[in-house]
């Protein structure tokens, strides 16, 4: 009987592939051990470094220590991580003291060098460091990173630029917020908070009004971070003239004043449940006693979320109390409405 597996060529191939695999495995085992010992040595070194530097960094918060040890090239990453960690955790005055310490040790130059020559890891740490240092010399370098394909580098560079010069940075960033839809709203919001409402309100409001309908919802969501005095007029203008669901929902999400009550009440009857939901939630914030019948009716909506938000809004109305809510629940003709109001009553009791 003929067997492929008895062919000399195939046996030879199997044998040598097996031998090569075993040899490669042996090499990899050696490599794994080498790596293991390197990591152990490195982490022990980092631990020793942290044990030495942590007290010094804390001491520097009360003024620069007289004598600071030199930082070796291989300890730079550990130092920068430790320094950045403290920066993220401390209050504003303490941050200044940490910056003085960093400048006294030429950390600004170290960060710029790592920005120019390092790998992504080095660059991320360097960008964050330069942001905290508010180092104007790094502006042009950091601005280039805004256009990087790597979102993390771009967003971190944006945050660093805001820390260096918020007004100048926002002028560059607002158009990018529209262009770069891969930038997450969460991270942008974190970033804009750093700039503060004084600086972001006007440019964001302008951009929201001028941007095309598909980009507006993103900017309107961010308007929640702007001064209400600037944001609300924009929302009023948009809610009155645009019917796109995303925009209307975003506007209702941040609406805080009673001047648009009639519009909100009208939107409670919108055919799109997402709009009804936001309108109900909005009434929970700005509604008055007069909205009670409307909201009671909405607790019987076909959509669970609209029922839920309407019941919550009802419970939040100025004159509402537990007894009245129980009464509404008991007398409501709709089973679903009764259930949802009872749920909200229990939630309130639990919260209390």
């Amino acid at each position, binding site marked *: *009987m*003929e*067997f*492929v*597996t*008895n062919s000399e060529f*195939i*046996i*030879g191939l*199997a*044998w040598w*592939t*097996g*031998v*090569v*695999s*075993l040899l*490669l*495995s042996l090499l*990899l*085992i050696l*490599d*794994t*051990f080498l*790596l*293991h*010992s390197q*990591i*152990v040595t490195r*982490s022990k070194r980092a631990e020793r470094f942290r044990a030495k530097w942590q007290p010094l960094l804390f001491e520097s918060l009360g003024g620069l220590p007289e004598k600071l040890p030199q930082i070796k090239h291989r300890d730079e990453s550990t130092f920068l*991580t430790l320094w950045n*960690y403290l920066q*993220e955790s401390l209050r504003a005055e303490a941050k200044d003291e940490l910056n003085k310490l960093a400048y006294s040790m030429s950390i600004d130059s170290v960060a710029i060098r790592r920005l120019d020559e390092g*790998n*992504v*890891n080095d660059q*991320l*740490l360097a960008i*964050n460091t330069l942001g905290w240092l508010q180092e104007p010399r790094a502006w042009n370098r950091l601005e280039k990173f805004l256009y990087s394909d*790597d*979102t*993390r580098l771009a967003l*971190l560079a944006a945050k660093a630029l805001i820390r260096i010069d918020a007004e100048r940075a926002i002028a560059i960033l607002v158009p990018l917020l529209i262009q770069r*839809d891969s930038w*997450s*709203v*969460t*991270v942008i*919001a*974190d970033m804009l908070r750093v700039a503060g409402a004084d600086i972001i309100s006007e440019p964001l409001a302008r951009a929201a009004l001028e941007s095309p309908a598909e980009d507006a919802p993103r900017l309107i969501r961010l308007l929640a971070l702007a001064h209400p005095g600037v944001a609300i007029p924009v929302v009023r203008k948009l809610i009155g003239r645009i019917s796109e669901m995303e925009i209307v929902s975003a506007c209702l999400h941040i609406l805080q004043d009673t001047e648009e009550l009639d519009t909100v009440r009208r939107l409670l009857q919108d055919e799109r449940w997402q709009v009804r939901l936001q309108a109900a939630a909005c009434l929970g914030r700005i509604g008055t006693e007069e909205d009670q019948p409307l909201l009671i009716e909405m607790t019987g909506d076909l959509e*669970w979320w609209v*029922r839920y938000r309407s019941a919550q809004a009802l419970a939040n109305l100025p004159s509402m109390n537990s007894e009245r809510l129980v009464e509404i629940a008991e007398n409501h003709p709709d089973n*679903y409405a009764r*259930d949802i109001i*009872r*749920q909200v009553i*229990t*939630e309130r009791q*639990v*919260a209390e």
Partner: protein
Amino acid sequence: MLNYVLIIQWICLLFFIGINLGYFFLMIIALFALPRYLERQVLLRDLPQPHTDFRLPISLIVAAFNEEAFIVPSVRSLLQLDYSEYEIVVVNDGSKDDTLEILKKEFSLVQQPVAIRQRLKHRPVRGVYQSTVYPQLRVIDKENGGCKADALNAGIDASLYSLICPLDADTVLNRDAPLLLVQPFLEDPRTIAAGGSVRIVNGCELSEGVIQNVRLPNNPLVLFQIIEYLRAFLFARVGWSVIDTLPIVSGALGLFHKESVIAIGGYNLETHGEDIELILHLHLHFSSEEKPYRIAYIPDAVCWTEVPETFKVLRRQRIVWHRSFMESMWINRRLLFHPKNRVMGLVCMPFQFVFEGLGPMVEVFGYVATVICYVLGFLSTEAFVSFLLLATGLGLLLSITSLLLEEMVFHTYRNTRNLFVLIAAAVFENLGYRQLTAFWRFEGLLQWIFSIETKRDVVTRNATLQTEKQTDAATGKTLSPAPVNQDVTSKSYKEKITT
């Protein structure tokens, strides 16, 4: 006759070449992609993260069936997660033990009026309980549905947030796991699911549901499974996710866009492989609808789970896993050669179907035929030894590469002795264990082919799995009596692995 023998030999040979080439392809991708991915995570891992109301809130859904022994530490560990806004929805799937009573007592639960909007198929909800101590904790008590999928569907219906994270009641999450899993959703709006890695907790020190010290167990069976898990998670999933064809998100740790899951009808109640079915169904749905989507794998989002410590339980687990895997593949067979998702349809699905699904059949046939041919003298000793060397060498190479990747990016096992033990396990795993699991998977394949149902009231879950797994490593004491007679389907509340 001769031609048939030749054809069969060529099939076996080509299968062997194909599967190994596939694994090497995935391994090479992982070797490049994994260090690169982790390099970018540096600031997320090393620096404190701001908690903002813009971060997406998530609903953790814990399916619990007869989990009185573990449910409290499990919920307590979830209450300690490092995340700004999340809720915990524990679904008591008609437990016959005191799971609900213990939860009520431990977390001061009060009953709420039921107002759940039912959008998915599941058995009726009997009651909803709210903790008066932890506002983010709710317990849904429902009639037993016979499978985890039923409980998860009820949890999804009861959840409040747009991202859901289904979990097993005995899974321990790393504190930063939700923070890491949510990243792809923040960075890419196309993301519909993100999966994390599963590690083995046997042998580790646990306290209040939190890992205190990572240790290796003494049981060789568990050590072999550690190597298997490393292979599955560190190169297979990384590899598939890089080419956007991740075929599975572990049932033990995954984050999903709720509306996408609801759009496909939630978890399938007809299969025990609800997690793999869900992912394949999502692939199929979004591909057919031509909607852009992404399913991400986040290797450093880690949860810990317990694995069987006896051959008997392990055998049952593997049989159920393989049958479930084939069920899920078959349900979603339209993905094979799908014209609108070519990489998935032409690369991943055929690989999964042929090499992972039907593979055990060829593998077992290969083992048996080789031994018989050798004994009957049809195969020379030279050929026998060469092929044994080849199979062992390639298997070892893959395992050692996974170990190297683990050391390179995670360095979980810090003790050098542990590394020796794992390398020894990687060597000895090739001499018996792999062949054994191939036989078990073949059994699962046969069960699927002949549609043999493992009756949940007939096949009992090995009590040792429960008792052993809840042994407190610190004190060496068993935490509480274990439920016996738990069915193998509820055992499928455990993690599924496939390369």
